[in-house]
């Protein structure tokens, strides 16, 4: 693999640095949540002393854990989305073939094949009348994602 190919591949990947930070934050968040659970149900603190359910500390740890987990999740999702956005969409292009006989209106649509061009005469005869066929149009269909503005 050449240097240029390697850089292209690395651009597509999520940065290792970000993945590492997200993993650490997620691990800490899970620990915080476990501790919160432990405090809530057992009343046991990290130092081992037994109390009768420290609800305040459990709530604080749970909130910290949840916030950290959410932030890590959002960061991971955004990084993945950025990678997904880095795809070049290749549109599906269609070729319309029509019969050259004026009386025959036979038309077929198929996927574009390399070598097709508008007004190219084809060797395959028309299925209906056996006449010569020709490429009459080549186009892509776009499903409009754009917002419409009523102005």
């Amino acid at each position: 693999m050449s240097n240029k190919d390697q850089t292209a591949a690395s651009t597509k990947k999520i940065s290792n640095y970000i993945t590492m930070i997200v993993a650490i934050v997620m691990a800490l968040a899970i620990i915080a949540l476990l501790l919160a659970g432990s405090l809530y149900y057992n009343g046991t603190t990290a130092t081992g002393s037994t109390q009768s359910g420290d609800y305040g500390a459990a709530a604080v740890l749970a909130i910290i854990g949840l916030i950290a987990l959410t932030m890590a999740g959002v960061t991971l999702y955004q990084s993945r989305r950025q990678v997904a956005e880095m795809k070049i969409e290749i549109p599906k292009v269609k070729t319309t073939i029509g019969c050259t006989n004026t009386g025959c209106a036979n038309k077929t649509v198929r996927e574009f094949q390399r070598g097709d061009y508008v007004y190219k005469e084809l060797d395959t005869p028309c299925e209906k009348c056996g006449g010569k066929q020709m490429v009459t149009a080549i186009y892509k269909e776009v499903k409009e994602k754009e917002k419409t503005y009523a102005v």
Partner: protein
Amino acid sequence: MYVMIREVENSLRKLKYIKEEGRKVTIEAIKEIGKPTTDPSARVDRFLEYFTIGPQGMDPAGIVYKLDHILDVRDERMKDEVKLMAPASDEVQVNNLENTLEAAMALNFIYKVIRHYYIQGKKTLSLYVIMQIQMILPMVMKEAEAYASALKAFAYGQPIGDGAGPLIAAKLMHGYEIRKLHKDCVMATVPFAGRTALVIKAEGPGGNVGKPGDAVETVIEENEGKIAMVVMIDAGLKLEGENVGEVADGIGAAIGGPGVDQYKIEEKLTKYKIPNMAVIIKEDIGDAVSPMRKEINDAIDNAIERVRNVVMERTKEGDKIIIVGVGNSIGVGQ
């Protein structure tokens, strides 16, 4: 400022990916079509860095012909390079590969300019350097994405949105005797609404815009200036809010590019006092360089009808008119 830098950085990463993909697609296309004996990667990399120096404008007299000459040399050089890279390719494929390489060159250039401003902004910590690039970033990204989707279209020889003009001309001239014109253009004499239409387009189906300026000059001179009207049909950039495939007509030379062809056409039309009408099919920059959208293809008949109306309203029966389909003829025969 940090938010702006992050935004530019993310876009720059995407541009780098698009640029690398462009290079990859180009090399694959050359290998597949041109069957080179050696790896073309090094030659492609050199090609991507090519530049053209425009003529000196301190004394503007004659600058158009100097620019014309430079563009001719550039075109010839590019074709020669492509032939060396892809020895097994025919003329149509050479044109298509040349277009593919030009799209890859454009992507490479966009990436390098954005990177330049990004690094300069970080080095100088100047808000204004970063801000000016961040402000135009959405348009730059749109253009880069358009070129990215154009790469495959050029490599496969699919008609692009810019080919609307040649497609209309092809529809008018199909079935009539075709004559070659200088340079890379074709012409047919066609009966049109009771008039004689001399229909001109770039020669297809290879990726080619020809030199419509020279072609129109030649045809006008051949007819000693006895032309009732010139109608130019081209793809026109739409504004946001307008629909793709809308047809509009007006006056003037509807032709883009560096301006050489427009200058030549205007010169000749002024000399013989020939009125110049224009019909455009609206599309945005992305549509112009990517495979032709159905809406543009469907607008062809509408545009021909508009040309017919313009011709019937402004010329008499039996008159001779010129109809020029301006644009890239890739994927459009005649």
